[in-house]
C-alpha cells in the first residue's frame, strides 16, 4: 500500500515538473509555437493521471529487502559507479578484476572464491575482447597519473567534477 503511494507521489511530482519544464521548451520559426511542447505535455498529463490512480488505488506492498541488503545494494551501486569512471584512466583489467571480485563476493560471500572469480573474469574477458572480438583499443590497460585519477574520481562528487 505505502510503497505504491510513495511511488505514485514521486511520479506525480516528476510528471508535474516535466509539464512545467515542457512549457519552457524553446521554440523558433521552424518548429512552430506549440508543436515541440505538445507531446511532452501530453505524456506528463497521462503520467500525472496514472499517478493519481496509483495513489488512490495502490497494490499490496512487495517484499522489500532488509537493511543489510540495502547496504549491499548501495555498495554495489558505488562499486559500479567508481568502475565506470575508472575505465578511462586505468583501462580494463585492474578495475574489472576489483569490481568483479566485490560483486562476486556480494552474491556469494566467500573471499577466496570471489577474488579468483574477479581475476579470472578480468583476464578471460580481456582475452576475448582483445583476441576474439578485436576490440583491443577498448580494453587496453593504462598507467595513470594521480592528476588523471583525481580528475576521473571527481566526476562522482557533486559540484566538484565536470
Amino acid at each position, binding site marked *: 500500500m505505502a510503497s505504491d503511494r510513495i511511488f505514485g507521489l514521486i511520479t506525480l511530482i516528476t510528471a508535474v515538473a516535466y509539464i512545467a519544464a515542457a512549457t519552457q*521548451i*524553446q521554440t523558433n520559426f521552424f518548429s512552430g509555437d506549440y508543436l515541440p511542447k505538445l507531446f511532452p505535455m501530453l505524456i*506528463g498529463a497521462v503520467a500525472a493521471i*496514472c499517478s493519481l490512480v496509483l495513489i488512490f488505488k495502490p497494490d499490496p506492498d512487495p517484499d522489500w529487502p532488509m537493511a543489510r541488503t540495502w547496504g549491499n545494494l548501495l555498495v554495489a551501486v558505488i562499486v559500479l559507479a567508481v*568502475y*565506470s569512471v575508472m575505465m578511462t584512466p586505468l583501462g580494463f583489467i585492474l578495475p574489472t578484476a576489483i569490481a568483479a571480485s566485490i*560483486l562476486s563476493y556480494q*552474491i556469494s560471500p566467500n573471499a577466496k572464491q570471489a577474488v579468483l572469480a574477479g581475476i*579470472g573474469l578480468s583476464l578471460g*574477458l580481456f582475452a576475448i575482447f582483445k583476441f576474439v572480438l578485436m576490440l583491443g583499443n577498448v580494453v587496453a590497460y593504462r598507467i595513470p597519473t594521480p592528476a588523471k585519477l583525481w580528475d576521473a574520481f571527481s566526476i562522482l562528487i557533486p559540484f566538484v567534477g565536470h
Partner: protein
Amino acid sequence: METLANLALGFSVALSPYTLMLAVVGCFIGTIIGALPGLGPSNGVAILIPISFALGLDATAALVLMTSVYYGAMYGGRISSILLNIPGDEPALMTTLDGYPMAKRGEAGNALVLSGAASFVGAFLATIGLILLAPVLARVAFLFGPAEYFALYLLAFCTLGGMASNNQAKSAIAACIGLGIAMIGVDSTSGLPRLTGGNLHLYDGVDFLVAIVGLFAIAELFFFIESHGKGSSIGVVLDKVKIPWKYIRETIPTMLRASGVGFVAGVLPGAGASLGSFLAYMTEKSIAGEKGKFGTGVPKGVAAPEAGNNAAAGGALVPMLTLGVPGSGTTAVLLALLMTLNITPGPTLFRDNPDVVWGLIASLLIANVVLLIMNVPMVKIFVKILSVPAWILLPGVTMVSTTGIFALTGSYFDLLMLIGFGVLGYFLRKLDVPTVPVILGILLGGNMEDALRRAMTLSDGDPSYLFSSPIAIGLWIAAIAGFVAPMFLRGILKKPQAVSD
C-alpha cells in the same frame, strides 16, 4: 512465385559460409543465454548489440547473428524451465507447469527433446506465416498516414500494458517514463535542446541501448545480490537422452494448433511471446479437458507452450518488420538493432532493402534447422553450462554489458546512466511495474511524436484529424479495448502460478 524468388534472394545472402558460421555461433550463444536463469532473450540480445556494433559487422551479418541469438534464446528458455523449475525467460513460464513434473518423474530427457521438436514446429510454421503475411501487410502499410501511425503506436503501448502487467496504471506510467526520456535531446525541427537541464551530455538524447542493458542486465545483478544467487543449482539429474517418437507423434495436432494460436498472438502489436505460450497452453488445456491431466507432467502440456512461444516469436517479427512497431520486448530490442544499423523498418523496407528482409527471413529458417540439430544431441552440454554458479555469471554479465556500452560510446556518462537505469529497473520490478513499456517508449517516442506533429501540421492543429480515416478509428478502438479489456478479463484469465515442490 514472387515469394519464392524473394526467398532465393534471401538464401543467396544468408548461405555464405561466413553468415552460416555466424548463425551457428548465434544459435549456440542464444541457447545458453536463454537457458541461464536471469538472462532472457531481451537482455541477451541487448548485451550483444553494442558488441556486434563495435565489431563492425555489416547489416546482414549483424542481423543474422542477432536473430539466431533471438531464436536460440527462445529454444534455450525451456531447458531451465524443465530442469530447475525456473523459467529461463518469461515466455518459458508455462513450460514449467508440465515440464518440471515430467522431469521429476525421470523423463527430463524426453521433455527436453519433445519441447525442442515443438519449438522447431512452432518457429518453422511462424516463419512460413511471416513469409506469407509480411509482404501483404507491408502493402497495406502504405495506406498509413501520420494519424494512422500515431494510433498504431498507441495501440502497441495499450496492448502491451494490458497483457504485460497486472495494473494498467503502472504499465501506462512505465510507457510515460520511456516516452518522457525519448523527448530529451535536440529537437529535430527547431534544432533547439529540449528537457536537457542544460547538460551537454544529454543533447544527443538517451541512447536506448543504455536503457535496455541497464533495465535488464544491471537490474538483474541487483536482484541476485538481494537473493544471494539462491536457486541456481541443478535440481534434476539428466541421464540418457533418446528421441521419444511416441510423444512427438501424439502431440503433432497440439503443436499445429498451438503454433497457430501463438502466431496470431505474436502478430498483435505489443502482445508477444508470453501471451502466445499462455494462450496456446490454455487452449490445449481446455480442449483436453479434465481428462487431459494438464499440470501433472503430460507431453501435450510441454509441447503446447513451447510451440506457441516460438510461433509467437516469429509472429512478433511481422509488425516489427512491416510497420516498425515491435510485438514484444525482444522484437523491440531487435528494432533497436535495426535502428543502430541505420535500417528503418516499415513498408519501405520491403521495397528498398529486399536483401536485408529476405536475408533475415532465410537466416531465421537456417537458424531454426541449426537449433533443432544442435538441441537434440547437445542438450547435455547446455545442461552443464546451466551449472555455472551465479557468483561468476552475474559479475561476468555485468562486466560484458558495461564494456559493450563503453565500446559503443566511450563515455563515462553513459556508464553512469547505465547504472541509473539499473537502479530504476530494480525499483520498477520490485513495484511490479513492467519495464518493457519503458524500452518501447524510448525506442518509439521519437517516431510517435513525429507522427503526431506531422498530423497536426497537415491539419493545421485540428485534433479531429487523428480520427479522420476508418483505419485510424479502428486502431483507436482496438487500443482502447486492448487497454480496458484486461481489467475485466483479469479474473477469468488468471495466470497459473508455477508449481511448487
